[in-house]
């Protein structure tokens, strides 16, 4: 009796665990750019595979009556993934992922192979957070209202937000191409390895800059400094350009 109950429970638990992974979509790509356009709730994670894997972490449900139908939206997009998203080719090495059905609670977890650039744009004031983890390639991120959290990344990156806070933790700073992070009303919190070599530009008009790193501030000779608070300096022996700006917020620069 006890063993039977255990078995039944086991089956139920297994089914529950397996369910979310059933709703997924794969795109074969190892290079080029994955553009995530106007998705509301997204977490991106790097892994060493050869296809982009999009999973729904929450529940993606369509009503009983909609069985056999596909969501359609005003932008002419149709769901070609089965998880409320439209995936389209744009040019030969760019895939654009867009949300078709908006009224769902689906949270998307996207696994991205190394070597694929990630671009995320959300221009909604109610936009949700964007999260990225363990990505060693180029990223472009833009939000209007949503926060941006990036952990264990290297850049190069161009990140900007109007109202969002931006948190970035670098594993190391990619040296071949520059990075720029800017937010208007949010705070900017960046963590770098203490041994980082970079040419820093820190700017805030109304906020403050706080740091525990040894920044060798340079007098900007021959350069017009127009921001009320713009600091140019070197980390370590200098290196790639890293530009951090929070117009109304504070800039926190931490060493680890």
């Amino acid at each position: 009796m006890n063993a039977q109950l255990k078995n039944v429970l086991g089956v139920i638990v297994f089914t529950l665990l397996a369910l979310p992974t059933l709703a997924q979509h794969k795109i074969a790509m190892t290079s080029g750019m994955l553009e995530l356009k106007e998705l509301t709730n997204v977490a991106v994670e790097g892994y060493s595979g050869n296809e982009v894997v999009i999973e729904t972490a929450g529940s993606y449900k369509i009503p009983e009556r909609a069985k056999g139908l596909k969501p359609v939206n005003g932008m002419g997009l149709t769901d070609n993934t089965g998880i409320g998203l439209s995936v389209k080719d744009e040019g030969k090495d760019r895939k654009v992922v867009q949300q078709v059905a908006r009224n769902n609670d689906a949270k998307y977890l996207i696994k991205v192979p190394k070597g694929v650039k990630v671009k995320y744009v959300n221009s909604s004031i109610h936009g949700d957070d964007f999260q990225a983890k363990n990505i060693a390639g180029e990223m472009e991120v833009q939000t209007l209202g949503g926060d941006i959290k990036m952990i264990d990344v290297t850049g190069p990156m161009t990140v900007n937000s109007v109202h969002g806070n931006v948190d970035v933790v670098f594993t190391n700073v990619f040296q071949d191409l520059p990075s720029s992070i800017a937010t208007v009303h949010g705070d900017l919190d960046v963590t770098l390895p203490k041994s980082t070599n970079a040419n820093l530009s820190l700017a805030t008009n109304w906020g403050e800059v706080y740091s525990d790193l040894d920044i060798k501030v340079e007098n900007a000779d021959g350069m017009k400094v127009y921001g009320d608070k713009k600091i140019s300096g070197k980390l370590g022996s200098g290196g790639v350009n890293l530009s951090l700006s929070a117009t109304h917020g504070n800039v926190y620069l931490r060493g680890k």
Partner: protein
Amino acid sequence: MDEQKMNDLMIDYIDGNLTGELKEFVTKYIEKNSENRRKYEELKAAMSLLEHDTQLEPDNSLKTDFMLALIEEVEAEHDRKVKPIKKSVWKLSPFQLAASLALIVSGVFIGMWLMKADSNNQQIAEIKKEMEDTKRLVIHSLTDNSSASRRLQGVNASYSIGDADDEIVNALIRTMNNDENANVRLAAVEALAKFADEPKVLNALIESMETQADPLIQITLINLMVKLKEKKALDELKRIIEDKKTMETVKDEAHMAVFKLS
């Protein structure tokens, strides 16, 4: 018929190579007047000389005379006392010595100076080429649609070209107005701010406020105008304030700017 051809014909005639009409023609020509006759005789004489041409050799007496003269000369040489020219460099007068030294030294210096001038020119040419390469790189990077960071690098590299270069300025203005990435546009505004004392650049910055829809760039441009104390921007700032599409946060910034500039 010219003289040369006539001579050739006469030579053939003398050799007996002519027959028929041509032979008669030449015979008539020779007998025509004394002048032609004389020519014919000359040619004939010359040709017979050529025919009887033999090796002429001087007779032996000449050779004996020469040998005798040679022996006499050699004997005379033995009696003569030879005084070779023996003048050492050290016996040159000090003036001669100084003059030759000066010539050598100045030669070396002129040579070195010429070489240096040449290498200077080469260096200038190299720097010019480098600048040109950087320019091409900047302009090329700014149009790289595959990577925003590469375009950002292009904007950053434009700082290394000190003076406002027309091509670079135009490329930066295009990037400021048209690049799809706000960070790249922001960097272009900052790069152009360096050249804001050029009327063309200032106008482009003011005009850009009209088209920029991104609050990040709008606020940056507004603050730049305040920093430059640029009253010409007032009309544009007022338009931004009245524009219904402008975000509140940008309007606040524009209000502040109008207050500071007026």
